[in-house]
């Protein structure tokens, strides 16, 4: 099992705070609507989870 960051898209304000702290550049805000995390790049470090001002990113366990 690995941990990956997941965004609750409906509540995302697309501020991009998460983009700035991601050490793997795994997050983008395409089209200014909500943050999208590239699962292949995400290592589940949780930096974005801490940073998100709306606290709408969480770490979830996923099957490898």
């Amino acid at each position, binding site marked *: 099992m690995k941990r990956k960051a997941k965004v609750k898209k409906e509540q995302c304000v697309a501020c*991009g705070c998460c983009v700035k702290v991601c050490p793997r550049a795994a997050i983008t805000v395409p089209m200014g*609507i909500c943050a999208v995390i590239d699962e292949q790049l995400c290592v589940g470090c949780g930096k974005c989870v*801490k940073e998100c*001002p*709306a606290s709408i990113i969480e770490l979830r366990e996923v099957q490898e």
Partner: protein
Amino acid sequence: MKKKWYDHLWIFSLTYLILGFLNILFAWLGLICFVVPLMISIGHGNKAYCNKYCGRGQLFSLLGGRFGLSRKHDMPKWMKSKYFRYGFLIFFFTMFFMMLWNTYLVFAGERTLAQKVTLLWTFKLPWHWAYHGTLVSDGVAQFAFGFYSVMLTSTVLGFVTMILFKPRSWCVYCPMGTMTQLICKAKHKEVKS
């Protein structure tokens, strides 16, 4: 991560607040923070302004993060709800248009210039030391006082929520952020259909 030139735009935001304290006419520069995000969202259909260039966000991030002024608690649920965000957007712009109306009245000569900065839409602070006269109409100065009031009010609100919640809590209910996100949503819906 290597810092880019735009990671230092917080200096612009801080300088803006200081300049408005010295000469109110500098408040006009704040229009950049209104026009640029709108132009980017309308022209490019993204929130690059929030994501990269917003100096105010960077300032809160710095004060709440590196300076440790934030409790880093979660925001209450109601504050991140769409009702609050859209409600605040409407309220903010209603007050903004009232400010424009007051400016118009001074331009039209129906009202005299009030050398005051209104904080939180209620408290009238004396600010006469920042007024050194204008070459043109008094309305130009009235707009500067009004616009600086808007900028100072939002900074104070953002600062309070920075302390109470996460550093960039302001971004969640920032009217410009909400509006540019709505523009992006509308723009991309158009493309899809």
